[in-house]
């Protein structure tokens, strides 16, 4: 049941840890549907207001209410925002998991728990803080029905007192979180105060964990990747959105609906400069996107693995008939329904080649919320420029968890609508054919209904450069060879990898997406604790940049880190590498559904390096 990959501890001698400032993790164990999300976000937001780098990860079940949920907040002085495996401070609110939650803690950890659970009897090497939540909540919340929700703010108050958080900052965070709901703010503020006061009167500080404000820290926003991508779509000027609900992608479209209603309704007329349709399934979603893009709109959909599987046939059509489409794949654990609320990078191979026949698609792979925003905008430019589907490969960890980030920059460049035929171009090129490669880059000129330019017949069956039906072998070969040429042109236009080559390093890392955060931290661990200096290349797109092969050439061993069983990126790389390059690749794989963490990467690399 527990989403932990830690071993149970026997708990012998109490190891008193040294004072730990701004560098530990807090886990809140509750049941879902109990309204703990507000309390957790208020806590996270408070840390941000204090200038402490922090991230929050929600591990939740595929269920609406009543099953165990864990929310982990990690504060890191050095700005590591990936998952940390061990929990330093536990808030045990769920009787069902409390025992296991306590037994898996490292010695020296601290536990705030609901008094009747008597968790203090389980171990002697931890610090325990019993809190009578029911007794505390009754006086501040007369309405018994609301108590279950308000109860959670009490642990925020307790934590604030125990961890040295400025109470007024937490109230400020509460106000921000609940916005205009004055009654809810008052109720929660009272609970917060009750927790604080109880801790002050009854819980003398015994653990080493404290927060201290970091003066002069830059202002950060707190946002999940789905909302970040939604803002990017809106700024890209998306006009048609079709979607079908699926975790973990739903909130991308739901955020988008919220933003579009606020910022994309014409002031003068009160009418929408967009259409968002909840389609009957993912096949229809992509069909609508294709129809809209074909008619000249910027259109998108968002889904997860099961939806990607359904989109196969239409993706092949868009590829072959050369219709733009932007598809966000917020990956979750498959195959089939898999673990629908857990994270993975398992759709790389299926999307790269989605559909039957010879197909290849453009992939963008964001690692941060900032890249969710910028790559959302790039996706539309690339889709229109290359007249083809573009997949933005996010994952549940990135899409649904909250990440801190510098505020997004306003886009300074206009959008790229690609090769759209106009009267001047028509004159210049003479005879136009929809699939004629006039410029030698594989990208033909396009017309759309209603633009006054020559019409053509779009089809998924064989066609010649003039878009006429053709079953001629030479027409077919020329056409798919041109598509290949177009793909090669795209290779040079995709976001380049981020490369950090360490002088003299024999070992390199390759990673992508959210695996980045664990790798960045693991490199520091390897260097500082093991004296192993490494280089790093972060892949940001497919087709791959030539710099990946150069990077492999420059190192003796290259660890490809990814969150799937089958080393999907490594497999995709192998298709383009020489035998010598392939021989250098090693894999670090993590596929439990929990976000990858640095310690696991470090341990795996050390083992493969023969060092441990």
């Amino acid at each position, binding site marked *: 049941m527990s989403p932990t990959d830690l071993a149970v501890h026997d708990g012998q001698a109490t190891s008193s840890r040294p004072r730990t400032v701004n560098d530990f993790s807090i886990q809140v164990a509750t049941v879902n549907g109990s309204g703990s999300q507000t309390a957790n976000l208020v806590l996270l937001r408070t840390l941000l207001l204090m200038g402490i780098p922090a991230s929050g990860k929600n591990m939740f079940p595929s269920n609406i209410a009543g099953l165990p949920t864990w929310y982990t907040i990690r504060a890191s002085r050095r700005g590591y925002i990936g998952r940390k495996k061990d929990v330093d401070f536990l808030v045990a609110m769920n009787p069902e998991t409390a025992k296991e939650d306590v037994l898996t803690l490292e010695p020296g950890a601290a536990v705030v728990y609901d008094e009747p659970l008597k968790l203090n009897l389980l171990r002697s090497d931890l610090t325990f803080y019993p809190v009578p939540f029911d007794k505390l909540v009754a006086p501040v919340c007369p309405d018994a029905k609301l108590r279950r929700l308000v109860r959670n703010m009490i642990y925020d108050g307790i934590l604030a007192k125990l961890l040295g958080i400025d109470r007024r900052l937490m109230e400020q965070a509460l106000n921000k979180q609940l916005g205009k709901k004055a009654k809810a703010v008052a109720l929660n503020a009272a609970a917060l105060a009750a927790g604080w006061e109880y801790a002050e009167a009854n819980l003398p500080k015994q653990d080493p964990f404290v927060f201290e404000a970091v003066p002069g820290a830059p202002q950060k926003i707190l946002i999940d990747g789905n909302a970040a991508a939604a803002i990017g779509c809106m700024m890209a000027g998306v006009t048609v959105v079709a979607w079908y609900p699926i975790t973990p992608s739903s909130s991308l479209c739901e955020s988008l609906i919220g933003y579009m209603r606020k910022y994309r309704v014409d002031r003068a*007329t009160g009418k929408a400069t967009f259409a968002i349709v909840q389609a009957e399934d993912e096949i229809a979603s992509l069909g609508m996107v294709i129809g809209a893009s074909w008619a000249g709109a910027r259109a998108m959909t968002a889904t997860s693995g099961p939806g990607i599987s359904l989109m196969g046939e239409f993706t092949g059509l868009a590829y072959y008939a050369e219709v733009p489409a932007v598809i966000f794949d917020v990956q979750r654990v498959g195959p089939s329904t898999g673990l629908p609320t857990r994270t993975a990078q398992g759709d790389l191979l299926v999307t790269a080649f989605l559909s039957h026949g010879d197909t290849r698609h453009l992939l963008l792979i964001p690692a941060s919320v900032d890249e969710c925003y910028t790559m959302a905008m790039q996706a539309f430019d690339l889709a229109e420029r290359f007249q083809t589907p573009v997949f933005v490969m996010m994952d549940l960890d990135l899409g649904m968890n909250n990440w801190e980030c510098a505020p997004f920059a306003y886009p300074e460049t206009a959008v790229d609508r690609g090769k759209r035929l106009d009267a001047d171009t028509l004159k210049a090129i003479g005879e136009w054919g929809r699939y004629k490669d006039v410029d030698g880059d594989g990208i033909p000129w396009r017309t759309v209904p209603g633009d006054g330019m020559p019409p053509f017949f779009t089809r998924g069956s064989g066609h010649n450069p003039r878009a006429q039906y053709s079953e001629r072998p030479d027409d077919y070969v020329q056409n798919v060879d041109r598509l290949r040429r177009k793909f090669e042109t795209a290779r040079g236009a995709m976001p380049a990898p981020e490369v950090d080559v360490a002088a003299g390093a024999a070992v390199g890392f390759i990673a992508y997406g959210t695996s980045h955060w664990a790798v960045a931290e693991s490199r520091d661990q390897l260097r500082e604790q093991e004296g192993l200096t490494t280089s790093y290349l972060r892949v940001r797109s497919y087709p791959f940049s030539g710099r990946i092969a150069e990077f492999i050439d420059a190192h003796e061993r290259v660890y490809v880190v990814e969150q799937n069983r089958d080393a999907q990126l490594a497999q995709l790389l192998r298709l383009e590498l020489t035998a010598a390059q392939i021989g250098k690749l090693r894999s670090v794989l993590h596929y439990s559904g929990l976000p990858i963490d640095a310690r696991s990467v470090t341990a795996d690399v050390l083992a493969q390096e023969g060092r441990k």
Partner: protein
Amino acid sequence: MATPLKVNRIGLEPAAYKGGKTTLCAGCGHNAISERIVEAFYEMGVDPSRVVKLSGIGCSSKSPAYFLGSAHGFNAVHGRMPSVGTGAMLANRSLLAIGVSGDGDTGAIGIGQFVHLMRRNLPIIYVIEDNGCYGLTKGQFSPTADVGSRLKTGGVNELPPIDTCTLAIQLGATFVARSFSGDKKQLLSLLKAAIAHRGTVMLDVLSPCVTFNDHEGSTKSYAYVKEHDRVIEEVTFVPFFEDITIEHEPGTTQEVTLHDGSKLFLRKLGEEYDPTDKGGALQNLLDSERRGEISTGLLYIEPDRPDFIEQLNMVDEPLATLPLERVRPGREALAEIMDALL
């Protein structure tokens, strides 16, 4: 023989409405329907460059290549034309969409998208070229095959058919009609009325497959359909741009005004029939099925229901051509969003 130069109200000749040469079998009902589509668009004076032709996969779905050659066309994937049409109309609401499907394309693989298209009342003319079989894959039964109908190769259908008109009426289509590829006059009137309507037009046209389903024992053969066709009313269409009045005796004819001001005159034949009465329309379909007859004509119409575009409260201009400054919020907007996230 010199033919006088004939043009329509926007100055185009009939040739401007022609498409490529058909590659379907000689005598296929689908070809007759293409011819009526050409005539209807010509006579209505529709600018072909504002039309989009869509289809799924099948012999029927090939036919958009054979009419309106100067319109954009999109031959999508099997059964999924409704979604492509929906996207296209959302992108550019000033277009006029006509989709052609088959009874397999609609009733089998595409029934899901068909059902949801009907619910949305998207402005589109959706034509089913209904032959009770899969022509392109050589004559298997389709879901509109009647109980007891026999395949050329001998198999007999025992499953109840899907009545696409019943479905469309129940689900919210605002113009539902059934016709026969062999009834030129009725089909032409209905197609012209379809062009004048705003909302989903569902037009099921019996269209015999002369190669695989035109034999004795088939209920979708030319002879069988002709014999069992029961015309429910005589349809006369008067376009908004023609100043014609139809004389009729009181109580014999129902008049319906369409979205663009055109008028339909429905002269009663035999029984009372009111195509604005949903319950009556459904009852008629049930009764005719029981009698083994095929009711043709305008079965149901609801001229004023808001279409999908109106329901979405979209701006009047096509979304596809909105300039960047109207679709990219300004700096203050992004600053406000960022501020809320601090």
